[in-house]
């Protein structure tokens, strides 16, 4: 499903050059649930951003479904992100001025051929899947951290992406809420066959995934 070959990522400024990723080779199969672990600054989030086509690697190739996407235009990358990938962030990144259902609708706004009625229906269904159907008109500020992360997951899955990328989705939550979120992610993986790639610091959560990729100083160590 996801193929990374010789991925390099170097951040360059006028004075310094920071190597974030070196020679990463990785395959993620369809329906897999893997976690990426490593200490802070080891390149976990950078790797996730490269997989999610949010960041362009300095070297190497990224392929989705065997199609190389590294040379895609901004418009095509946006289309692939919209149709194939859902994101869950550590700090939720909900738009505070939009209510829950409007937040969830965002990915569908950028998909052609979906009427507003259909958009609303899909958003409500996604909220139902994460157990938040009773809070659709609340604003993010009125929800607990766990509920906000559920909204973020609903937003990530509303367009039925085949890949879900989660960047420390339980990082800002207490252990009970973290477990609840992990249950939701696992449910999506098991029931919907969604491929999940999760960055985490927490070995307890990583144990719940099928495979762990470990990074150290931008290199893949296992």
């Amino acid at each position, binding site marked *: 499903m996801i193929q990374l070959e010789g991925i390099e990522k170097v951040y360059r400024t006028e004075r310094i050059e920071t190597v974030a990723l070196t020679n990463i080779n990785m395959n993620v199969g369809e329906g897999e649930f893997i976690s990426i672990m490593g200490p802070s600054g080891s390149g976990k989030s950078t790797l996730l951003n490269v997989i999610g086509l949010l*960041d362009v690697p300095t070297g190497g190739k990224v392929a989705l479904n065997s199609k190389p996407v590294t040379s895609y235009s901004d*418009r095509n990358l*946006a289309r692939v992100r919209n149709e194939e990938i859902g994101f869950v962030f550590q700090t939720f990144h909900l738009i505070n001025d939009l209510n829950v259902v409007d937040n969830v609708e965002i990915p569908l706004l950028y998909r052609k051929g979906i009427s507003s009625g259909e958009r609303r229906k899909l958003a409500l269904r996604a909220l139902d899947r994460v157990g938040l159907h009773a809070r659709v008109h609340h604003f993010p500020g009125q929800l607990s951290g766990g509920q906000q992360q559920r909204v973020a997951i609903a937003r990530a899955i509303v367009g039925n992406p085949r890949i879900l990328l989660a960047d420390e989705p339980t990082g800002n939550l207490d252990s009970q809420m973290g477990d609840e979120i992990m249950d939701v992610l696992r449910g999506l993986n098991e029931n919907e066959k969604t491929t999940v790639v999760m960055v985490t610091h927490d070995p307890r959560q990583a144990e719940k995934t099928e495979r762990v990729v470990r990074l150290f100083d931008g290199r893949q160590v296992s």
Partner: protein
Amino acid sequence: MKKALAYARATDTCVSPKSFFSCFFVLFVDEVFMLKNYLKIAFKVLLRRKFFTFISLFAISFTLIILMVATALFDNVFAPQPPEDKADRSLYVMGIRLQGPESQSTGPAGYVFLERYVRTLPNVEKVSIYTTPNVVYSFWKGGKIKSFLKRTDGEFWQIMGFRFLEGGPFTAEDEKSANFVAVINEATRRKFFGDEPAVGKMIEADGQQFRVVGVVGNVPIFRINPFADIWVPISTSKTNAYKSQLLRGEFQAAILAKSSADLPGIKSEFESRLPGVEFPDKREFNTAIGGADTMFEFASRMMIPSQQMESQPRKLLAIIISLMVLFMILPTVNLININVSRILERASEIGVRKAFGASSWTLVGQFVTENVLLTLIGGVLGFFGSQFVLKLIADSGLIPYAEFHLNYRFFVYGLLTALFFGLFSGVYPAWKMSRLHPVQALKGAGGSR
């Protein structure tokens, strides 16, 4: 062609010169498809950022209101409208400047000057000579009525297209015979006779008795040439002193050309006569400066200082347009400023939208739509605001008989200019916003690619 379009869609670029417009069109149509979404998002953004929306709307609508009120005032003075409905082939000699070795005198011309140098101009259809309006008082039924009185010749009524509510104008014969007849306006009829008809009745003005022969609609004070409350023949003046006003006096003249094509010839003929003006005492004055002008040319002569009191209509127009553009730039700069400063505030939102499928083009479209929508709402508010302010000025009575009409042509120009600036003020911030790197944007930083 198909290849070029596919390439355009894949790369967001139109490289083939032959198919540039087609592929640009395809990219454009793709974006237009998103318009409905842009509008929905734009409405939500404007509603949720109330303070920004208020400031921006205030700036846009206030600018349009000022622009509309200014153009309505401008129209009130310069636009061809009754009674100056032949303004397209009319010229006016509003005054002259006399210069001498040690003195200078500027103001309305003398009767003799106009009779000698204007009345005799060749190739004109008509020339009328009349006084500037003078304040006179009438003592009527124990009260005092203040009016503006203008003394005119008979041709005045043939050059000006007054709307008569009763009776008709006095004639050249009335003027020649010094008949004590008067045309009054609607407001004066009301002051003297209430709702009763006035024609055939006598009024007193400036200690003289006149028989009313006609009643016309009120003329706004800004229409300097036709404006008055009471019009009477010049020959009814209390003395014949006006006949000895050689150069400077209290008279002005209107020239009606046979066609507008004759105006330049008439102007140059009049100017060519000025060096030959006879001065009674050359030690006092020895040069006459002036011109036969349209009202706008006259305004430029008076408003733009110059040694020779030249008519500089193009310069005045350039100044007015520059001021208007400058006035329009202020809200634009304000909008650009606010929009650019909002980049950081909206960085996270931009990151989220990019992550979930918004391309840079889509975001440009969205931000530009937000600005254009804001401008259009400001335009609508400006439209109603202008109507309100103009009504307020007209009702206040500050400007006698002022009838302000919203100039729809100028409103459309104003709105188009606002729209242009709306686009202009939206494109740069939109481009800057769209260039935010999604990862940086999600971190809330404003770094761009």
